[in-house]
């Protein structure tokens, strides 16, 4: 085999490796109940912030606790050991990465989607008329 053919083969093999490695590394979007079947294992849950229940931020402990409901409308208490993100209450959807415990879901990171910031929301014109 020629040098360039060997190189090409190696490149293609590595690329296939990359493609396959994604399926091993990708996490899945799950519900709280799936996460609870595997306590301590990392999952990504997309949920909505439950505004009816209390959102408590304890600055000295750096702990934010809130309630979120997942796509199956299961509500769980979520512990986020970090500061409260700006405009947390406004978030529409929260992507939470973390693991489940018997007292609640422990989030290592959360990503919020704020309707006002990134989506082109509309004015509420009709309330005026």
């Amino acid at each position: 085999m020629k040098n360039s053919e060997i190189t090409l083969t190696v490149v293609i093999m590595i690329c296939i490796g990359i493609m396959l490695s994604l399926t091993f590394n990708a996490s899945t979007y799950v519900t709280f109940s799936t996460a609870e079947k595997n306590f301590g294992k990392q999952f990504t849950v997309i949920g909505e912030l439950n505004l009816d229940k209390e959102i408590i931020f304890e600055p000295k402990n750096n702990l934010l606790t809130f309630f979120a409901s997942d796509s199956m409308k299961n509500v769980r208490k979520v512990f986020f050991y970090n500061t409260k993100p700006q405009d947390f209450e406004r978030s529409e959807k929260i992507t939470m990465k973390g693991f489940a415990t018997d007292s609640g879901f422990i989030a290592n990171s959360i990503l919020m989607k704020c309707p006002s910031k990134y989506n082109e929301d509309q004015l509420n014109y009709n309330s005026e008329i």
Partner: protein
Amino acid sequence: MNYIGEHSLIGEIGHLLVCINFVFCTLASISFFISSINSSLYQKWIKLSRISFFIHVFSVLGIISCLFIMIKSHYFEYQYVWQHSSLKLPTKYMISCFWEGQEGSFLLWIFWNFILGLFLIFKNKDWEAQLLTVISLIQSFLGSMLLGIYIFNIKIGSSPFTLIRNLEENINLPWTKLDNYIEIMPQFIDGRGLNPLLQNYWMVIHPPILFLGFSISMIPFCYAIVGLWKKKYSQWIKFALPWTYFAISILGTGILMGGAWAYESLSFGGFWAWDPVENSSLVPWIILVSSAHLMHIYRAKKIKLRLTFLITLLSFILVLYSSYLTRSGILGDTSVHAFAGGLGSQLLFFLIFVIISSFIIFLLNLKYIPNNKKEEHYSSREFWMFIGISTLLISAFQITWFTSIPVINKVFGTSMAPPIEIINLYNSWQIPLAIIIVLLIGLTQFLNYTKTNFKSYLNNIFSSIIFSIIVSLVMALNLKLWHPIYFILLFSCCLTTLLNIKYWKKIITSKFYFPGSSIAHIGFSLVIMGALVSNAKKNIISNNKDYIHKDFPQNENIYLEKGDTTKMDKYYVLYKSDSLEGINKKYEIEYFNKNKMGQLEYLFTLNPFIQLNNIMGNVAEPSTKHFLLYDVYSHLTFAETDEKDESNPYHHESIINLNTGDSIIYDKYFFYLDSLLVHANTKIESDKALDVLIIAKIRLKNIYGETFSTDLIYAVKDNVAQSFPGFIDDNGLKYKFIFSNVESEIGGIQIKAYEHILNDKPFIIMKAIIFPYINILWLGSILMGIGTLISFINLLKKQKID
């Protein structure tokens, strides 16, 4: 109907210009195509084509002016103006409104494209007709994104000149039928304003540079297409190569400016986060670099021509793919700063059209493209350059594949989420690839094309290897960077820098010209070195000692009360004050260190601030102190920005039940009820006399043994009780006590105690990071930008001589 106060004329002009622009782009493309068929048609049609192109240029300038006038004059009846601007927006940021929205950023792209198109009209007469056919076609695709018209119920494009009352969701609503709607509806007084993240000087300069980079990458693509079309399979490289370097220079600078913006004004603490938006501009850059090097190989050895075509076509396709990813809304849950959707299907159509048509042209010509089957020797420069290019392609593939998870989900119907540890995953792929690439950039310099004498090669590089081992050992010792993979990368960067300096000296003396390649290579290895050291050895100094678990980022933040000096790593920090400056709430954080005498010595002040924005939410911006060898970065992760309500200053009610002589602990005090004096009137002497008067004498003792006392009075007249509160002030800590009830059954009294709102000291939560040697990264960025720019100029000059 005539709407009062509506500036409809300018919108109509703007919309007309948008349509003219689209028509004349298409016309230019068609007539350039006809004039490229043969020379007699050329004579007839070229004038018309150029005129059409000029009309396109003027209409784009007109569109930009109309939009700017609308933003500047605050015509909030227009959706674009309302969404991206406001009365309070400073003039310097008005220009940023252009690239906050989809429509405006397309306009920016079109603007750069026509400038490049004009340049080619005047500079390359032989290839003009074909080149401009392609460019005008691209322009008409981009121009169609601004149309905002309906054809058979399908919306084509989105116009920046749409009135809010004409938006799809508002049509036929009752208020749109009122002729004075602007006057009576308060929503039209002010716009929503510019996203606070964009109100930053970096965001005035970064997007135009990035878009210029995207635009320039179109030119090598056009040359490749025209090279195939005119069957000039090798001449096109001569023209395309300088522009490829120009694109590398500008796009690279744009990407690194984005990194600088993220580092200076965003909160994630770093300049690169492998965000899909960042990735999708990095990938075209990597492909451009591969394409430039393939062109060099071809020029030297006349090999790999097919691959050169393919990769050059791919670079522009990836630019389009990148804009599809970031603008279609498909990234959704995986990125925080993607545009919202709307033009997804139109962009997808554009992308697929470009992919299919360029590959058809490529495949039709495939058998005619010279395919030199000569085998490259393993000791040749071209062989190792090719290995480097392959590594770059693998790197680009990995980034693209992992960034495309939402696309993969859509195509295959899967529901994969991005990996949890995505940053580590990218690093674990990219760091080994970076080692190979960096090493090859250095080691290939002293290889010859065709074949290299191993002995003389070793002579050339030997001293540099020894020297760079020493340098990297010293650096690693200094930084404690002993992770084996990181150390190898550090060594590779040192070696490549040294080898390129050596090579630069060698070629600068042998030829009378100033080569850019070595500068760019040195720049690249310094960027990698700076990125490695500042990231691998970044030190979060605000570590909170309240340890819960190593995985919880909780311990990365420090809690600071106003006026208190707190130890933070080797520093002492003081949250001194805060003040409101315009829309920014600025915090003054002073850094001290302890000298040998044990006294605090003032070092510097950092001013992280919070941009207050009621509509879009507050944005915290970090502040960084730059030193030559390291940066101290401080960022507020939390701060209370609401003003306290002074009209009702006492809160936190607690109820205390106790009897004479009892003591309890309240807040930080021992609380005593010393005595209760009771006056009861049995005889009614006058109407004004009280029935019962009780005085409770209370005393508070703090930890220093200081006592504070006050009297609480409880009075009853005609069965109505009234209470007179007592106050205590311990060095500004204020409390209020109310004698609220007599508990006759247990023989005691009930007191309600309140704390003053100012007893809670204002606090902030801050994250502070030391980034060592980050200046290496910036120095490398500048060198890379300059080096590639020099290559562009040199090649342009050489092209003239040829």
